[in-house]
């Protein structure tokens, strides 16, 4: 077992897949530049050459169609956009071509095409560098959407996306890049990302969240444990997943639920999950008055340091919300003094 951060596990997964399959290609702006997409593409071009590690023109839409053309010829392709916002230019190809190629032509094409979409936050990322329409993407038949919250699930998502034969979107939060996990990298079960996970066991309250809110919720769960509040924290990596039995089982036990949506609640995947829970509510004895939701305010993000202080949900917000729900006095934690717009000392900007 070794300690790997999220960036390194992506890098290792890309190396492994490029090595195992000579018909695999990595493409994306910055893939061969000195910064190597936040370090995730280090060493690829040196190992596999410019034919297979393509530093392309700034043409997000065409690149996405080109990636499809390659995938249709049995190439395995990883296309990376350094921001989700940039990939909005490619939605014609993502939606009108990739998501429905197999449907339109009535054949189950093997399309091993992985599109990495990196989400920004803080440091003035603002209205056009922090958007995350993963919920919308998960509403499209024909795409599979993953939002890995840990280094191991990031590794698994790369491997699955480059081999599954199904067009795959990986939502990759910039603030997760420095999260760590002890891993046996040669022995990661890639199917783990297709199951709901219980990350913290408890029977007082259930939290359901995913993506970059998972570490925050985990931190809150651990803090609350020291006050004898036992949180059951459930998450998913596969946003196309329909089975919510794990949540139902948990709320049958806790009768209380806090849902944390990493982006806007409006038209989100978490509202779908609420609908699914409602369908099974008689099995759960869920106290509906306890149902709480945390999400971003439904407003674009300002670039100003001064405007964003209270925008994002943090582990402290989660603790306060649970204290309210349980009607308990819990001392408000005092986090280590740090500007609110960086994930840690490791982040020095610019994006």
């Amino acid at each position, binding site marked *: 077992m070794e300690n790997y951060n999220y960036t390194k596990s992506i890098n290792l997964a890309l190396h492994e897949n490029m090595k195992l399959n000579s*018909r695999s*290609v990595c493409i994306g702006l910055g893939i061969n530049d000195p910064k190597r997409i936040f370090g995730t593409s280090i060493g690829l071009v040196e190992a596999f050459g410019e*034919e*297979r590690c*393509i530093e*392309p*023109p700034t*043409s997000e*839409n*065409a*690149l*996405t*169609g*080109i*990636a*499809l*053309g*390659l*995938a*249709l*010829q049995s*190439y395995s392709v990883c296309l990376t956009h350094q921001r989700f916002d940039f990939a909005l230019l490619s939605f*014609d*190809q993502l939606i*009108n*071509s990739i998501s429905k*190629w197999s*449907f*339109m*032509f*009535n*054949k189950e094409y093997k399309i091993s095409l992985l599109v990495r979409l990196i989400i920004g936050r803080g440091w003035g990322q603002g209205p056009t560098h922090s958007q995350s329409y993963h919920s919308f993407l998960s509403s499209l038949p024909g795409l599979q959407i993953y939002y890995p919250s840990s280094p191991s699930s990031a590794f698994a998502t790369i491997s699955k996306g480059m081999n599954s034969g199904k067009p795959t979107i990986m939502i990759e939060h910039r603030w997760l890049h420095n999260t760590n996990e002890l891993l046996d990298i040669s022995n990661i079960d890639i199917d783990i990302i297709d199951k709901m996970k219980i990350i913290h066991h408890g029977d007082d309250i259930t939290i359901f969240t995913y993506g970059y809110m998972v570490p925050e919720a985990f931190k809150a769960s651990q803090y609350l444990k020291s006050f004898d509040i036992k949180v059951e924290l459930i998450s998913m990596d596969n946003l196309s997943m329909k089975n919510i039995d794990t949540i139902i089982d948990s709320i049958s036990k806790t009768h209380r639920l806090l849902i944390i949506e990493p982006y806007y609640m409006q038209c989100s995947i978490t509202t779908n999950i609420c609908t699914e829970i409602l369908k099974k509510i008689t099995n759960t004895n869920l106290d509906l008055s306890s149902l709480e939701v945390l999400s971003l305010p439904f407003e674009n993000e300002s670039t100003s340091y001064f405007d964003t202080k209270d925008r994002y949900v943090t582990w402290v917000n989660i603790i306060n919300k649970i204290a309210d729900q349980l009607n308990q006095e819990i001392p408000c934690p005092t986090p280590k003094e740090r500007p609110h717009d960086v994930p840690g000392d490791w982040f020095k900007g610019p994006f």
Partner: protein
Amino acid sequence: MNDQLVLLAFKKACEIREAETLIAENYNKGYIRCPVHLSIGQELVPSILFSFHDVNDFAISTHRSHAHYLGKGGSLQRFFDELHGLPSGCSGGKGGSMHLIDESVGFMGSTAIVGNSIPVGVGLAEAQKLSKSKNLTYIFLGDGATEEGVFYESINYAYVRKLPCLFIVENNEYSVYTPLKPRQSCLKLENKAKAFNAHYSQNLLHEYKSLFNAWSDAIKYVKSNAGPALIEVFTNRKLAHCGPEIDDNLGYRPQKFLSKWEKYNILDIYYKSLLEAGYSKKYLEDLISEIRQNCTNIYFKSEKKHIILRGLNES
């Protein structure tokens, strides 16, 4: 282009004209229940495509793709079946007129959003290059698609990566009802193509021999790893943008323009050349009748299947 190749191109052009005419004539029966963008008048390009037939070359096309599909050698029965929404159609009835495919002959798909299939074609050419194939990819598009950003993204990428792409632009001068001038700041596609280092050639008045030669040169060029080529073929769609009607009563195309293209009907041009090459009128007329009969038989097989599947009574 020898006489045999001219005859081959003529036969393909006749087949396309017959197929499209059958669709137009029978459309109002309501058995074809999807939008159709017919290629009557634009048979030159697909007939020349057929004279360079190679199933290992790929092609990708647009909403107006019937003729490209047939010019690439796509199955006529599965084409008519597709238009009739039948499971036996080339796209299982799921795609209809605007989403055709026949991979067995290298026709890799057509899609309905203007410019949408262009980069997919470039990606197919990238795959050909990476796998050291000796073949190329045809990317068919119209003049409207040259106004889309993705066209420029794609032709630029094709040059940067030196891909074997042959862009064939059929310029019928109208995007639905709108002529070129209010749409394009620079009317010369030549300038735009050359700005991206694409090898360019142009065909103004259905001169089939010069198109054949330009096509042959372009194939050699793109196969030499020099980058993409683009051939612009001025042509004329006889019918409405969408649907089976002649819509010249709307007056959006000047009479002078329409009269000019009446004189350059590609079927008449091929016919005349073949007469001059020594083929008899009877031979050519028999040939046309045979093609017509064959297309008709195949068409009505599809129509009959549609009627049976819907449980309708044949009228």
